[in-house]
């Protein structure tokens, strides 16, 4: 595996252990599991405000009860995650404006609009799935699995199977793609 960002990459086991420690700190001190997709659903409610109006958003069961659009612990955690990665990438000189990742380019070509359109569609599908399952790789995959939740281990296993099937269907033509 070529390591392009050797200076910016820490050992994945060390990073995993630190995320585990962060997780138990947030459980103990703030009574909050790590999660991300609820905050994005809250942000989607905020983005709907100009179109639906405050009354329209408040009339929606989901935004009224499950993902209220406001600045709270979860939405600030989302903002923090952006800022943390920004700080990490700038301080390790690995910040790079890039629209088309190399693996995508090798398989689907260098077109920027094509990649951005696919990312948009993929993003829509992933968040709908996350809300339907009531969690994402953070909320279910890490926070739920570490509590041995039945829902989270089901999510983890099915997500990986679905991802493997999708990845092989999209990228594994004659073994040429990906395995550079």
């Amino acid at each position, binding site marked *: 595996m070529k390591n392009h960002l050797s200076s910016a990459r820490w050992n994945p086991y060390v990073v995993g252990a630190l995320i585990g420690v962060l997780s138990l700190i947030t459980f103990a001190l703030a009574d909050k599991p790590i999660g991300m997709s609820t905050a994005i659903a809250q942000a989607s409610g905020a983005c709907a405000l100009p179109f639906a109006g405050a009354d329209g958003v408040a009339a929606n069961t989901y935004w009224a009860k499950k993902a209220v659009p406001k600045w709270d612990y979860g939405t600030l955690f989302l903002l923090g995650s952006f800022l943390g990665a920004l700080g*990490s*990438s700038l301080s390790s000189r690995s910040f790079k404006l890039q629209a088309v990742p190399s693996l995508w380019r090798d398989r689907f070509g260098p077109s920027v609009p094509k990649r951005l359109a696919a990312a948009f569609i993929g993003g829509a*599908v992933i968040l709908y799935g996350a809300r339907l399952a009531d969690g994402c790789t953070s909320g279910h995959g890490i926070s739920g699995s570490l509590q041995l939740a039945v829902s989270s281990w089901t999510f983890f296993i099915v997500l990986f199977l679905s991802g493997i099937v999708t990845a092989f269907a999209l990228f594994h033509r004659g073994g040429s793609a990906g395995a550079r």
Partner: protein
Amino acid sequence: MTPLLAFITGSNLLWAGLFFGIVFGWLLHRGGVTDYNVIVRQFLLQDFTVLKVMFTAIVVGGLGVWILHGQDLANFHIKPAAMLAVVLGAVLFGIGMVVYGYCPGTGVAAIGAGRLDALAGFFGMIAGGVAYALSYDWVAARILPVADLGKKRLPDLASFPEWVWYAGLVAMAAGVFALVARIEKTRAAFHPNA
């Protein structure tokens, strides 16, 4: 019940969220999981960074939270096992994760690292959130109640003591790590430059 140590409340909770988020985003970036190639190659079984990070976090966090919970120092937060919704959602999530190339957390962090496709996908996630909110009444009536087992933990399913489950978790993680190490060693022998 409020756990004994949870002294971060009220408006301090907002600052704590921002701070914990910064640490999380920093770790995701340093772990390499804000990289499209790393995520997609995990599903192509060519790069195991994602599994290494997740399983280590689950073992360390799992043992830690279990111990804290045993001392009444932390609450569990279990999501309901609405099995139809969880399975359908996970299928969609897996498809979306490969096409997007990030998950919600790593996507937000990847925007911070300058990845413009992650930003386009963030707008997609906003659209997905709107779609879910608009369909929520139907989903809540037709999908969520199907095969809903409630807020169950694995230890609720079989009457082994808790420590047996955690020992199994550690053993499973060790097995996965050993298997991954073997695969990586075999590949390195065949592709010295890969």
